[in-house]
């Protein structure tokens, strides 16, 4: 048994960290948050050049054929850099749904375009009920046409394809075809823009059945949790650095135990979230018996932890932490958005309770 990363995983993580530091430094993140879509075509082309846009897709679709652990490592580094734009929506979310439900020809066509960096995609799931339970989906395709409204659709304005989950299947829509109306939702996370998408009898191509999305959403949840771990790590690093340099009462504030203990708890929460995320990613990759419960554990723990790590980090920064100029709030905003996406901690605790109380996963 080996929990450490192997050599190629280490290399992937290290090179991703360097890539994001070079191509997407904080100044670039800030610039993109000020734009309408947080998308930059030039940066996207570079992500594709690295092979990142095809990381988990099979090699026969032009992908790198890597696993969920590798996806998690890449997302962790993207999270550390606060990479703005549709990478998560396109690769971890829409890509996983395509992999899980589409037929071979659809997978080849759509995934190869995504791998090459030529197309972006997103998934429209939530409706006015804001429920993550597929049973609550109302929108239905009638004779190959979709009608209805989806909310909280990430990166819809820059997506070439919108994958809509309907009552009677998973459908792919070209937003450029008439009848699709995309409207921005003003939301907290400035790096990942959300939209309402209205479909007015829009022709839709069926990809597959709704039952196929649960595994794909588990991959998305773990990818998001991994991104949160990267954000937590960055928040911790910035905070420890600040505690070492900021002086009050003639001393660096990090000498005071009240400050030190906040940092120690941030460390405990970050490392624990990282363990949970790596374990869940491996479980999904290997289809282990406890994969589903591990995903819920990772998503709930990382969601709670990234909020508390953000709270502690800003608290240690004092007044400086509350300014627009300081980067912490950008992470703090994303943490809140990610916390609710793909099931908030309460949702995942109930899912886990069901798995261990009713479905007997506890004896493991």
């Amino acid at each position, binding site marked *: 048994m080996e929990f*450490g990363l192997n050599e190629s995983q280490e290399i992937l993580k290290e090179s991703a960290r360097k890539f994001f530091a070079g191509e997407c430094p904080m100044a670039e993140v800030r610039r993109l948050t000020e734009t309408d879509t947080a998308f930059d075509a030039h940066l996207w082309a570079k992500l594709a050049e690295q092979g990142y846009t095809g990381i988990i897709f099979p090699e026969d679709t032009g992908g790198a054929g890597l696993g969920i652990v590798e996806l998690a490592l890449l997302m962790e580094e993207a999270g550390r850099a606060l990479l703005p734009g549709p990478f998560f929506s396109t690769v971890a979310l829409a890509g996983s749904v395509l992999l899980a439900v589409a037929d071979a020809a659809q997978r080849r066509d759509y995934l190869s375009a995504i791998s090459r960096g030529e197309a972006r995609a997103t998934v429209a799931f939530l409706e006015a009920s804001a429920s993550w339970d597929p049973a609550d989906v109302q929108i239905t395709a009638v004779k190959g046409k979709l009608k209805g409204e989806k909310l909280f659709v990430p990166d819809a304005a820059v997506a070439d394809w919108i994958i809509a989950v309907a009552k009677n299947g998973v459908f792919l829509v070209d937003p450029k075809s008439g009848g699709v109306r995309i409207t921005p939702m003003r939301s907290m996370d400035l790096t990942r823009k959300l939209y309402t998408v209205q479909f007015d009898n829009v022709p839709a191509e069926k990809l597959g059945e709704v039952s196929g999305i649960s595994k794909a959403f588990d991959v998305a949840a773990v990818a998001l949790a991994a991104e949160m771990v990267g954000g937590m790590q960055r928040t911790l690093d910035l905070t420890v650095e600040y505690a070492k340099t900021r002086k009050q009462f003639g001393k660096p504030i990090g000498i005071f135990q009240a400050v*030190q*203990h906040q*940092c120690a708890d941030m*460390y405990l929460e970050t490392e624990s979230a990282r363990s949970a995320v790596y374990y869940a990613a491996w479980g999904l990759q290997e289809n282990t018996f406890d994969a589903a419960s591990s995903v819920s*554990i990772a998503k709930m723990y990382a969601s709670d932890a990234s909020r508390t790590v953000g709270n502690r980090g800003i608290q240690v920064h004092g007044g400086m932490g509350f300014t627009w100029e300081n980067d912490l709030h950008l992470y703090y905003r994303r943490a809140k958005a990610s916390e609710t996406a793909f099931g908030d901690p309460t949702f995942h605790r109930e899912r886990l309770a069901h798995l261990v109380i009713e479905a007997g996963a506890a004896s493991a």
Partner: protein
Amino acid sequence: MDLKLTAEELAFRNEVRAWLEANIPTDWSEWREKPLDESFPYLRAWQRKLYEGGWAAVSWPTEYGGRGATLMQQSIFWEEMARVNAPPMANALGLGLIGPTIIAYGTNSQKERHIPKILSAEEIWCQGFSEPNAGSDLASLQTEARLDGDHYVVNGQKVWTSYGWVGDWCELVVRTDTTVSKHKGLTVLLVDMKSPGVEVRPLRQMTGESEFNEIFFRDVRVPVENVLGKVDDGWNVAVSTLMHERGAYGARLVLTFKSNINRLIELSRTVLRNGRPAAQDPIIRQKLAQCFAEVEIMRVNQLRAFSHISATGIPGPEGSIQKLFWSELNQRIQQLAQEMLGPYGQLLAGDPHAVERGTWSYGYLRSRGNTIEAGTSEIQRNIIGHFVLGLPRSY
């Protein structure tokens, strides 16, 4: 990253499993409810049996009677022990903490004298570290050893000594030089508890039992050949013992916690809350899931720490969070049990209405000590702040 067992690990598991199946005592369930002083001879006999099978200290090097097991194999060993509800071994501190310290620092004659008897449970060890005025600030301890010919003469008092009441030998930290800074003048002595001048008194804790003792030393003569490591280098020797305390111990705790949370889930099916099983109460479900998740994370943190130590040879940053994590988690688990049990939660062993013979009321009180013993949570956070994150020392 590959979390499947290797062929070697599987073979090891099968070997442990086969031995345990053939040798596990069948009457442990009758003994486990009895007070420790009554069951102690039973535990000694069980350890003796493990020793004869070569299983008493799998982590130790083979030349000292161990199996040179990797951390992962150790974790497999304890998992198998838990799977068959094996009794604990009598000489817990000797095997877990003090033996490894003697292997690391002892002279050949010390090793020959002590190691076999630690393994066979012929001699039980206790640990004389804390003092009434030296708790978190252990290095300020005052028990003094004065050289008199070829003996040290020890005077002072130790407190919170586990197994003191049954200890044959003690790993004792004493001050041998009062003129230097506090970390420098310490020495570790191996003390025969039958020496004249050693007095052991029970220390009654808030649970009502006496797991721990106070030990008084009055002009106790200890031969100089019983110095462990170098004179005045006792701090390093003691820290080595403390590292063991916070390290491999975690693997066994994970199993205890796993079993406790599973028991709690079972309990939730039968215990009623607001007229229906607690398992159907949405708030209890949230809290059960939270505790279950954290026990899982404790297990996975442990696996990650093991891989890190195996790869680098040094305890990684993951190791330092375990003590903090488990002690606070256990308090939350015990509080959840109390919440589920309501008024029944307070009933002690012996009361006819007590649930599961009062184990949860005991667990609640006992867990209060978890964030204090073996390094308080405050000290653990200081260690993480200073040694892991590089923040300036606060004291």
